[in-house]
């Protein structure tokens, strides 16, 4: 009987939350790119507050990964250095464009529309980087572990890679109208998600037939179900309920941990052998437990504030009582 590697499970759970937040942002970014005027009223009220939280979860995951897998730092740093630095540049573009977009005052050749679309483009670029890195870690495509190098050409020529990327994009574009409740794009959701799931399944099969296990049914069924439920008047509000969507999204991503555990890089790296050991394990558990409480309370505060603002949309800024000048 195998024991559970809790270091891996905790790290992957944090990764799942980060990825769900990022994917919801990515869907919004794509909508801003393809139909800014038609979707901004639904997309921006979600994205504008959440992008800061997504970035924090990204940092959270990176630090827990450093903590859990110290032996992997050098290999991963060498292997994916080029992609990681491109990712970083896009991250700076994403953060700067959205914070400028939120507050730009003078509208000239550049305005909030262009900046929000630049944010969408940068987020899409980050998404592509993330998919390439994840698929490489899952499948080993383009990776030569003996020399710790990654070849984009090698990744592209692997039959599963581009399908993997296309599948993710289809699913993302298909679910975007569901998550953001974009009625005019409603009918696109089922065909795109079904196509996306089929392409994704094909990509995994091409990587390795063992990847297409029963666990794949979890995202396949839930993804298609969400797009179908959105077609029915009665169930559409449930399908596009953001909290439920994010919760199920986290479950879906977490259920795919079998792709990198017990081995990553298509069987080349046994995860149990690269996790930290000794007193550091206890410290990891203790801090993670404290972290879950702290982050949980903070997220509860955030959801409480969102709930109050949504429940009382008439809430207006208080009018200050004017006293004296200093």
């Amino acid at each position, binding site marked *: 009987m195998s024991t559970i590697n809790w270091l891996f499970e905790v790290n992957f759970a944090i990764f799942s939350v980060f990825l769900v937040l990022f994917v919801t942002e990515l869907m919004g970014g794509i909508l801003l790119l393809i139909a800014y005027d038609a979707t901004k009223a639904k997309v921006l009220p979600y994205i504008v507050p959440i992008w800061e939280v997504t970035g924090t979860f990204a940092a*959270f995951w990176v630090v827990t990964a450093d903590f859990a897998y110290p032996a992997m*730092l050098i290999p991963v740093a*060498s292997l994916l250095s080029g992609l990681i*630095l491109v990712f970083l540049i896009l991250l700076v573009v*994403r953060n700067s464009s959205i914070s400028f977009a939120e507050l730009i005052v003078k509208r000239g050749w550049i305005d909030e529309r262009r900046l929000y679309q630049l944010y969408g483009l940068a987020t899409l670029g980050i998404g592509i980087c993330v998919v390439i890195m994840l698929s490489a870690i899952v499948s080993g495509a383009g990776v030569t572990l003996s020399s710790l190098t990654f070849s984009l050409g090698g990744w592209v020529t692997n039959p599963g890679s581009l399908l993997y990327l296309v599948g993710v994009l289809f699913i993302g574009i298909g679910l975007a109208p569901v998550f953001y409740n974009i009625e005019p794009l409603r009918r696109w959701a089922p065909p795109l998600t079904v196509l996306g799931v089929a392409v994704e399944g094909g990509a995994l099969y091409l990587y390795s037939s063992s990847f297409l296990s029963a666990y794949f049914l979890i995202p396949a069924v839930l993804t298609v179900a969400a797009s179908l439920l959105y077609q029915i008047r009665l169930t559409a509000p449930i399908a596009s309920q953001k909290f439920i969507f994010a919760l199920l999204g986290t479950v879906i991503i977490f259920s795919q941990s079998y792709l990198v555990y017990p081995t990553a890089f298509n069987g080349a790296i046994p995860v149990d052998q690269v996790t930290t050991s000794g*007193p550091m394990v206890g410290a990891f558990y203790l801090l993670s437990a404290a972290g879950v409480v702290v982050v949980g309370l903070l997220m509860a505060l955030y959801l409480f*504030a969102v709930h109050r603002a949504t429940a009382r949309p008439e809430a207006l*800024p208080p009018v200050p009582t004017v006293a004296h000048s200093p």
Partner: protein
Amino acid sequence: MSQIVDFDRLLFAFTIGSHILLVSLSIGMAIMICISEFLFARTKNKYYGALVRRLIRPFVVSFGIGTASGIVMAVELVNLFPRFMTLVSQTGVIAIFYIEIFAFFLETIFLVVYVYYGNTFKGRYSRWVLTVPIMVGTLLSAVLIVMVNAWMNTPNGFDLGTYVASGTNYSVTNVNPWAPFLTASTGDEVFHVLASVPLTGIMIIGGFFAYRYLRSTSLEEKTLFLTGLRVAVALSFVFVILAILAGVLEIDGMYQYQPLKYAAIELNPQPGTNLPMTLFGTVSGTSIVGGFQIPGFQGWLEHGANLPGLSQYPQSQWPPLIIHETFDVMLLGGALLGLFVIAYCGLWLLKRKPFDRPILAYVFLGFSALTAIIMELGWMTDELGRQPWIVYNVLTVNDAASNSANLYAPGIVIIAFYLFLFPFTLWFMGRVFRGKSIAIDLEGPTGGREDVNY
């Protein structure tokens, strides 16, 4: 190999040098916002409200860019210095980074709630309460990062001897995950940063206010900038006193825990008890060339202690002696800054209206720039003073650094991008600060989404 390592050094130094400037501004703004929000709640003075409303806009920008550049730095550490980060991850230092994330969460969530949903919380002091964790989060982030720096200067929490003796096996044994939270230099460094970083941010903001106060033509604008300037000057006074105290304490601890760095900073060729303080100059053999000396001053400052000298260490281990110059410029600049802030406050207390004197406004602006330079020099002194080590007496920069030439191209792109982005960000922060009319801003902090474009 060494060229690549030098590039790694340059890239990281450039990134962190840019980042700390932005972080100082963020911390300064977070403190100003919290204090002004409290004063607004307490006095109902509309100018404090306008100050908050104006400061929160550049704060959001600096938070956005600062977050990204912080993540860039974290990932750069892994990519540029993988052996260092491996050691960090095998020891309790990673636990400090872990807690840093919670500080980051504290700042982020409260900022999001304050900026976008603040008006859902009623009560006179409720918005002020939301700003307290934002300020605490930003300060805590700085404190925790400095704790990592303190560990790099005075490492502990594992068997250092075994690690060094194991050579390229890099064997980490006897790990105590909690020890790095309190190293020999942690207290001094944390105190120093808690004083100097807010001082830098607040002085820069104060310089901006002083300049705008003189340039403004409308009475309301002038009153707003005067209000901000008063808050900035009062806070600068507190932090400059703390910074002087912290500087003295840190140099006290340094000669005990980092004697070689101390000897290089003070340019002591030989150890001794009644040593002079040498300003500028350099070492030639066992004597000092150039500069000028204050006889016995160093010995007096350190209460007659036996102070270290460079001759006690092999020359191959000496850090670059330029740190003596960077330290001296920092010291003299800091002394001038202290005198200026104290004199400025003195004029204010004596009702001599320092705010209305154009020359003092320009001098204030000059000191704003000087404060930023002092902080950068302080950081350079600390980092260069530890060379050739990345973890003092344990791991050298050469051994820790990546030797991958793949980093050149993206590294150059990052530098070029930052050279455009950072000046633009500072300019944009100035724009959004003055973005709306004073009449609108005098309605006070919105605590909602009224200032956000969507």
